[in-house]
């Protein structure tokens, strides 16, 4: 039993707390680091698997929290909406979800909103015509959808055909390290052979 405990303890040390709390975001609007130039009222993150209903997200602009008007979970999507489009500035969208298998996952998506000057007036004058706002919302929705499609296709392209020029890496193994490893294992092998065949004679 001592041996077992020893093995477990040494394994624990070898695999030092490799437990991470992040996972695959399939797609999101906005994407990480994206600069939004259209009015944005709906933010969503789609995950690789279904998530639990209590999953939530928060949006902060600098240190100020911008409270969502609704946050809903649909299958593997977490959707947050605002009644009014986001104003210019840099935001951090942070999400806390539980996958159906009990994995807790958190993450952050930083992005900036940088609307063209004319539209900015519309959004900063928050008390202005609601009619215009609604029109703008409708159009931004369409545009963001289009935007989303483009993004997903570009991601797929990236995955299927990696660009050679950025990835021409030479396999430069840490050669002295490799030599040491080989030597150690070889010596162990010799030691093993010696132990095995010594007893025979």
């Amino acid at each position, binding site marked *: 039993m001592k041996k077992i405990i020893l093995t477990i303890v040494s394994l624990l040390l070898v695999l030092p*707390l490799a437990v991470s709390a992040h*996972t*695959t975001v399939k797609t999101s609007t906005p994407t990480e680091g994206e600069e939004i130039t259209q009015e944005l009222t709906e933010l969503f993150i789609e995950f*690789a698997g279904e998530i639990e209903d209590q999953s939530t997200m928060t949006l902060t602009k600098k240190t100020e929290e911008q409270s969502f008007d609704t946050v809903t979970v649909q299958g593997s999507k977490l959707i947050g909406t605002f009644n009014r489009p986001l104003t210019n500035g840099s935001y951090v969208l942070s999400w806390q979800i539980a996958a*159906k298998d009990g994995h807790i996952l958190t993450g952050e998506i930083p992005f900036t909103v940088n609307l063209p000057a004319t539209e900015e007036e519309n959004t900063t004058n928050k008390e202005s015509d609601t009619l215009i706002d609604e029109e703008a919302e409708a159009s931004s929705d369409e545009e963001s959808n289009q935007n989303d499609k483009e993004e997903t296709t570009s*991601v797929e392209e990236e995955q299927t055909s990696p660009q050679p020029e950025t990835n021409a890496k030479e396999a430069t193994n*840490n050669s002295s390290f490799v030599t040491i490893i080989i030597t150690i294992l070889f010596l162990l*092998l010799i030691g093993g052979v010696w132990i095995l065949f010594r007893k025979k004679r």
Partner: protein
Amino acid sequence: MSQLIPVTEYVSYMLFSFLVGHVVLQFVPQTHKPIITVKKQSLLLAVLGIIILTFLPVLQVILFFSPEGLISLTSYSILTEFQVGIAWLYGSFFAVLLWMTIYVEGSKYIQALFLLLMIFSVGYASHSSTLNLWPGLFSHAIHFLVITMWVGVLLHVGWLSKDEKNWHLFLKWFTPLSIILFLTVTISGIFLMFFVVEPRDYVNSWVITYGQVLLVKHLSIIPILAFALINGFLARKVKANDQFNPIKWVQAETIILMVVFFITGVLGTLPPPHQVNATLIQEGPAPWIEFLLGQNITAPFIVQLSLHLDAVLLLIIGVLFIGLLIISFYKKISPILAVGFGIAFIISTYLGLMFSIVIK
């Protein structure tokens, strides 16, 4: 807390194996198994242990989502609405029934039924069942059931039997059974793996922690097979009056199996690489891989294998270690040394494969 989960998972796998092994051996006539003494207390404690240990992952979710603490409406709703919560409630319900059945020393069929239902509850909260409910649930539950049957019987025979009485009659049914179990575990395991790693991404996933741990798990199956070969076939040829002790060798096999259990526990806590490139961007590569390869890894990438001299040397050393493992049986060396050879095999093959990685 999350660091604790692989340990609790590992212990609960062991407890499940202990119970499953106990139930399976009840179906075997006394003439075909060694004399095994199991205390009722330890069986009852094992059931309680499972209830408590499988609650920890649920507790983790509860504490994360309910800042008000454990006794609150939120934690109640997590317990009753989250898939992990529901799975734990069902599992514990059947565990209590199993506990009572064991307590009154009830029918082995009823024990088997409740244990089976507990295993299916485990399957319900598995990663694969959240991706595709019924195929995922069944393949996970079958994988879990079959491996606990194999390990369970070995645990009882290896660690709880008095002597090697009836050993040959025991091997007569256990060897063919373990071949069937092994094939089932392998097939269901491959099926489960394809839920998270696509076949063409298998090698690519090696740069991510999940893929690394999965590779180590796969490599450690080979020494287990070597031990199974020794215990199942080679040990038969040893004459009864010889001083050879088969039990020690079964113990050695279970030690490597325990290593695999622990690796599996770790695997369950890691984010699976559904999309390797995306996972790499979000997670970064495995913590030690860049050092091992001596190069930085950035997405997008493709992992290819090209055999350098170093890598070939390490792979050959690995194969020789497996050879030594089997020879140490013939030389009647302590099985502990054979376990050492098995672990040396895992290390050298693992490094051999790592050094043959070329990232494009």
